[in-house]
């Protein structure tokens, strides 16, 4: 326990000392929040603001997962920082848990801040089930950090890691309904939309904020269950494939582990697609 607490405390200090972390976790999503809230918050106050808040939170969750956890883990390996940890008696588990917990501790105040701003500045009603919403977002955040860590585990270089992150990040931003409303998706795009992991995060948040649903509603519960599976699967795979040094290369086919982590979302997407059909 001493190791876990020390790593988490250190990770939080380091994160708060990095301008990039502050920028991507707070300033960048806030920029979108105020930018879109200025226009959409006026037209249809409740629906528009929920759309803006869920978009900003999704930006934050995906950024925290792919860049905050994934790219940072690759950087630490490439710079030889993990090599220093390797000579000590610790295992990868405290480092992986530390990354998850730190991301959560840094991100939760941002969500609360955004909900309060939406409520007090733009008159968005507070969610009916605030605690359940925070639990749902927390699961999403940890699931995407888990996915980020799996990408870090299978990428041999920063270049490979960046490509994998972009391949996941941009489709999720544009096809999950976070930025472009899902109502406009047709045909293949609609099918792809159902297979985007971020879709279930966005949909669940909107269900809870717009329709007053709780976490135990069928659709939200399914999404939460899939996120838990992703956290467990991603955690196990990150542990198994964890590499301390950049010289330890991983075989090309190991990249398929990313698909294994995404499997629960793929199954959920398939079920959704069959249901729509």
């Amino acid at each position, binding site marked *: 326990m001493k190791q876990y*607490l*020390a790593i988490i405390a250190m990770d939080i200090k380091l994160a708060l000392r*990095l301008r990039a972390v502050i920028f991507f976790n707070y300033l960048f999503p806030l920029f979108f929040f105020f930018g879109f809230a200025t226009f959409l918050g006026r037209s249809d106050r409740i629906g528009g603001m929920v759309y803006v808040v869920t978009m900003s939170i999704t930006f934050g969750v995906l950024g925290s997962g792919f860049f905050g956890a994934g790219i940072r883990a690759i950087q630490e390996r490439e*710079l030889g920082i993990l*090599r*220093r940890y*390797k*000579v*000590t*008696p610790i295992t990868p588990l405290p480092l992986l848990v530390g990354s998850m917990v730190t991301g959560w501790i840094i991100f939760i105040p941002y969500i609360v801040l955004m909900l309060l701003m939406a409520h007090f500045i733009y008159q968005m009603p507070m969610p009916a089930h605030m605690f359940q919403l925070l639990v749902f977002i927390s699961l999403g955040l940890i699931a995407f950090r888990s996915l980020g860590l799996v990408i870090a585990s299978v990428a041999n270089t920063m270049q490979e890691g960046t490509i994998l992150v972009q391949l996941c990040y941009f489709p999720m931003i544009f096809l999950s309904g976070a930025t472009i409303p899902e109502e406009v998706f047709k045909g293949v795009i609609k099918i792809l939309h159902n297979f985007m992991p971020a879709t279930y995060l966005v949909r669940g948040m909107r269900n809870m904020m717009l329709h007053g649903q709780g976490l135990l509603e069928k659709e939200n519960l399914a999404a939460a269950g899939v996120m838990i599976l992703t956290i467990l699967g991603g955690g196990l795979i990150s542990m198994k494939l964890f590499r301390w040094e950049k010289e330890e290369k991983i075989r090309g086919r190991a990249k398929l582990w990313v698909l294994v982590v995404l499997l629960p979302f793929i199954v959920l997407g398939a079920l959704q697609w069959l249901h729509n059909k």
Partner: protein
Amino acid sequence: MNTQPVIAVQSLKKTYDKVEAVKGIDFQVAEGEVFGLLGPNGAGKTSTIEILEGLRPRTGGNATVLGFDPDRQKQQLKDRIGVCLQATNLPAKMRVQEALELFGSFYTRSISSEQLLKRLQLWEKRAAFYETLSGGQKQRLALALALVNDPQLLFLDEPTTGLDPQIRLEIHGLIEEMKSEKRTVVLTTHYIEEAERLCDRVAIIDEGKIVAMGTPRELQQQSKGQSRIDIICGQPMNAATLPQWPDAVESKLSEDGKSLTVHSSRPARTLFEIMKWLDQQGMQLEDVHLKRPTLEDVFVELTGKRLRD
């Protein structure tokens, strides 16, 4: 006193794909000994030391370190040893004292960061970010991290490579302190003077094999090379009257006759005879130098290569 070796290595092998980096080496390290692995880059020093630290699995042979098998009892072993890596890094925004406290938390036993910082002359820098430290300060911090669990066995992998001579001397001083505390130290280096000054015993390693092992003096004595004696006198010596010195292989007088160089296989005896002759001749001796073969000479003789090749 414990007579069990701290490290025992038998027929140790390490292969990377088809490259044999370590080709079946044997050695033992006794408690309190400073043992050096000396060799050029790519000789197999780092592979050997990293197997013993539990960082890499061996391909063949046996090894025990503090009674642990480095392959099967990694965590227990890592808890008891200190390691200063050849190339390492810490997060740029981590403060010096924070690093010691963080790494100290990973071990079942650790010593106070304040004590370590003062001892390694980093107390003034305790609040500095890692990115602001100089090369020497970073290396001192790496040594402090290696000492954070108060280990009885330390592995120092090329601890002074790339540092300027002043800082290298500082690091040598710190290693001598560890030696005086009776800690066992395994040191890899390709600096001859480092091995000669710090090590009780040295294994010369080349292309994955140990080509010679012993105290630096024993290795120098094994050398077929001769010692060189340089004599400088106040008055010129007469070339015609110079005798044939016992055990001297070659002697040469400078143009002005004031400086004499003699190569000898038994320098003490030769030097004694020279001194006796100078006294008989009434010559005034101004300076005398005796240069024995270095470990570098031994290495060149054994491998046909220079250490920094």
